[in-house]
């Protein structure tokens, strides 16, 4: 469902935050922190990065002052909503020995109710991808499910795109069409500053009713549409997805894997910032007495040696095999596994790779050299690196 669009004036936006808080939500959204726009608690609209923007490139992120007082005048940063839905570290259970017996106590399912304020279209698609992994699967992650079901999603449509953005290529943006409770578009021009608001669910509509609004005119809606169109035209990257599933599966020995491995630090940053990467490990510990034990779930990455450790050693010992695994899973075998690509085109892995490895560039190179079936010879003759 989508409701008739309403207009929330800038000065009334705090009413929306208050309404969410009143409903028992813990509002989290973009804030300034550590030289970047990161997700954290938001109490009032002034907590958003007012008047800030970001500039991004492969391996580079910089905050810049804007000339206006926009609240959402930037793209995605190093954090993603998965830190709330699929926390980086979570205790699964504790075990206590007593005499010859022991007792296991599962960690209670998290019941925090988050309102995610400022979700971008690519991020909403990423959440939906993780839903398929954690909820719509044979093995349901009850903790994720509870967090997800409790969450209220406020989309903010993108009015600009960054240099590492490519949601248009992945068909995941820039406009969120569904799956949200509320969708806002920020309009700022000629002294006017307001939000075009559309409810996408009954609970979104109910919240919107608690806020001072007026109905949107057709020109307001046209302006909102125009803002998103502007973002559409600003994509800094493109990725040709045509046949990419087959392309990667047919090219496990492509020379490009060797050259990317020379640069890849196997540091795991790309997977940690990726909003769809879902892998975790479990760590079991005992204390000194040996009577108390805990199992923790922690974010893991296919770039570590332990990730593919089987009896006798790691299956993917080389960085080449690990990068290939990641990219091929993300863009190709993910489709076999979950019926969609694992990439939403947010560009985080490009920006937050310290050495700026760019998956769109890797795919382009593999595609361009795809006719070559004797990679080592070709690599030697043209020095492709």
């Amino acid at each position, binding site marked *: 469902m989508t409701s008739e669009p309403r207009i929330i004036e800038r000065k009334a936006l705090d009413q929306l935050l208050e309404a969410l808080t009143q409903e028992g939500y813990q509002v989290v959204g973009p804030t300034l922190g550590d030289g970047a726009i990161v997700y954290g608690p938001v109490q009032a609209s002034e907590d958003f990065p007012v008047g800030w923007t970001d500039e991004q490139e492969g391996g*580079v992120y910089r905050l810049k002052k804007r000339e206006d007082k926009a609240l959402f005048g930037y793209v995605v940063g190093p954090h993603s909503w998965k*830190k709330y839905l699929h926390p980086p570290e979570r205790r699964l259970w504790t075990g206590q020995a007593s005499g010859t017996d022991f007792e296991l106590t599962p960690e209670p399912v998290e019941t925090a109710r988050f309102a995610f304020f400022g979700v971008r279209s690519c991020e909403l698609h990423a959440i939906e991808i993780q839903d398929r992994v954690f909820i719509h699967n044979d093995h349901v992650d009850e903790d994720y499910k509870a967090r997800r079901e409790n969450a209220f999603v406020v989309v903010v449509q993108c009015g600009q795109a960054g240099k590492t953005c490519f949601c248009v290529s992945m068909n995941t943006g820039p406009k969120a069409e569904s799956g949200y409770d509320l969708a806002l578009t920020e309009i700022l021009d000629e002294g006017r500053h307001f939000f075009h608001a559309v409810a996408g669910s009954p609970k979104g509509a109910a919240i919107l009713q608690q806020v001072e609004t007026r109905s949107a005119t057709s020109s307001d809606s046209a302006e909102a549409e125009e803002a998103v169109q502007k973002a559409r035209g600003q994509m800094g990257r493109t990725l040709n997805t045509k046949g990419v599933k087959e392309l990667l599966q047919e090219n496990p020995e492509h020379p490009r894997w060797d050259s990317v491995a020379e*640069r890849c*630090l196997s540091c795991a940053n790309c997977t940690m910032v990726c909003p769809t990467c879902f892998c975790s490990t479990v760590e079991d510990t*005992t204390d*000194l007495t*040996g009577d108390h034990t805990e199992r923790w779930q922690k974010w893991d990455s296919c770039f570590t*040696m332990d990730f593919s450790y089987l009896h006798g050693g790691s299956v993917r010992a080389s960085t080449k095999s690990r990068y290939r695994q990641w990219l091929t899973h993300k863009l190709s075998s993910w489709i076999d596994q979950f019926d969609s690509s694992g990439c939403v085109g947010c560009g985080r892995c490009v920006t937050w790779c310290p050495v700026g490895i760019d998956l769109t560039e890797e795919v382009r190179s593999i595609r361009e050299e795809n006719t070559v079936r004797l990679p080592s010879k070709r690599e030697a003759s043209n020095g492709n690196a």
Partner: protein
Amino acid sequence: MAGKKKPKVAVWKFASCDGCQLSLLDCEDELLAVAEAIEIANFPEASRAVVKGPYDLSLVEGSITTPHDEERIHQVRRSSKFLVTIGACATAGGIQALRNFKDVQDFVSIVYATPDYIDTLAKSSAISDHVRVDFELRGCPINKYQLVEVVSAYLKDRKPVTPAHSVCVECKRRGTVCVMVSQGTLCMGPVVHAGCGAICPAYDRGCYGCFGPKETPNTESLSEWFKDHGMGNEELVRAYRSFNAYATPFRKESERHD
């Protein structure tokens, strides 16, 4: 271990600053539990009392720098069932391995009034260069929680959880923004072994590499980044030559730029 005798644990010091063995005393909250679980048989920083060997678990701090220590480490090995090195000195030769890149006799003649009294080896070396080591715990100094983890794991005969992946993983799990990407700050994190909890980047500093090289460190690629960000050869050499200067990947990388 109910009903069994408490394992005898000895702490041994070689060339080092004592910081790592002090981590054991620094355990504070866990200290009573440690004392409950093990018998401290030899621990110079805590007590002069020495219980005779053999020892079930030996924690070895420091590097081998003298002919005498070269002998002594073999005695320690012979009297220990399980030998764990603690810290960068014992594991990689420590900061004192900086001398390995120079002629130590030159230093001796400059520093000491009577160089004849000094009997030292040409190189500061890791314990594993001399005897078999059962487990190496990284860090300068070690992380006390990891030390408790290693002792707890030993007591339960399981593998300690001390992942060898990058510091980056720890930064990301705690939500720290990458200082390389957001500020262009030089950081060793992508090639450094986790374990400290990514302290420095959380305080806006690059990682100094206290825990030494991680598994599969791509130092060449990181050096390219350093050079692109204005670092000259001299600074590059210094970046790799600190507490873990003689750990093979760091030694080789520094030598490439020396």
